[in-house]
């Protein structure tokens, strides 16, 4: 942006508001699924109780901690660039990316275990389960899957931010992309804050 003459007209407040508007649509994307979950849980309380016992609360709790810490490191990277410490900002984003990797690895083992038990949508085992349990596992795979997709997209976004920090395109004066990348990452964390108790904790 620094090469164009009208670069000073880039309004960071407007850019950020655009990001928030996008986050609102994300909220309703997941919100819709939360509503389906709430209604189905009311309709099939026993089946949901049985099915939720299958989930590993320890992996869920571990991933909660991982995401919360990564949310802090990405928030700190913003502090670092505002204080004109690009190398610290790069390091903190790198830690965030590693934590994203840890989250995805846990998810891989978790899903892998479910698949080895033949608990996946459309499997022979799944077809024998009561209707409410099928709903629970369907929602579980849909919600955690959609969330994991957001972790991957957030990871790609933060990788781009990291390289732009390296090249100096993001600096103490212009860091809107990093701010918006951080906002996206916090949204990923925000959604998990609700997914964790609803799917893993409440049985």
């Amino acid at each position, binding site marked *: 942006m620094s090469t164009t003459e009208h670069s*000073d*007209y*880039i*309004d*960071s*407040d407007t850019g*950020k*508001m655009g990001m*928030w508007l996008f986050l*609102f649509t994300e*909220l*309703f994307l997941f*919100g819709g699924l939360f*509503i389906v979950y*709430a*209604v189905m849980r*009311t309709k099939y309380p026993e089946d949901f109780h049985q099915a939720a016992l299958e989930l590993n*609360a320890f992996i869920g*709790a571990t991933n*909660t*901690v991982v995401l*919360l*810490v990564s*949310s*802090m490191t990405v*928030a*700190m990277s*913003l*502090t670092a660039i*505002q*204080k004109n410490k690009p190398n610290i900002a790069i390091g903190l984003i790198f830690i965030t990316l590693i934590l994203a990797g840890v989250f995805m690895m846990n998810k891989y083992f978790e899903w892998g275990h479910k698949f080895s038990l033949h608990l996946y949508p459309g499997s022979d085992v799944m077809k024998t389960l009561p209707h409410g349990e099928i709903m629970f596992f369907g929602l579980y795979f849909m919600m955690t899957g959609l969330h994991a997709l957001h972790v991957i997209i957030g990871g790609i976004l933060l990788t781009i931010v990291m390289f732009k920090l390296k090249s100096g395109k993001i600096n103490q*004066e*212009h*860091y*809107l992309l990093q*701010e918006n990348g*951080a*906002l996206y990452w*916090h949204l990923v*964390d*925000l959604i998990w*804050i*609700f997914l*964790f*108790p*609803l799917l893993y*904790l*409440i049985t």
Partner: protein
Amino acid sequence: MKNHDNHISSYSLNLTVLLILLVLTTTSVLAIKFHFGAFTVAVALIIASVKAAIVLTYFMHLKFENLLLRLMVSGVFLLFAIVVVITFIDYYFR
């Protein structure tokens, strides 16, 4: 316009926020082990909402944003709450 006028959150504030979030997470894990019966879901959701509010306020810097943006975010959450209420009214009274 440059990002000059932005508030800078200190490292220590971010760390404090994380510690509070971790304490709340532990609380919700323990609270659910103690079974509040019918209140279990409510307890879990209240703690999750408090955590979400903290993330929005501090990590997402809403505390330091302008009034318009804060009103927009509050408005969207209010809208979502209304949608949930209407859905359940529809579910219970159809």
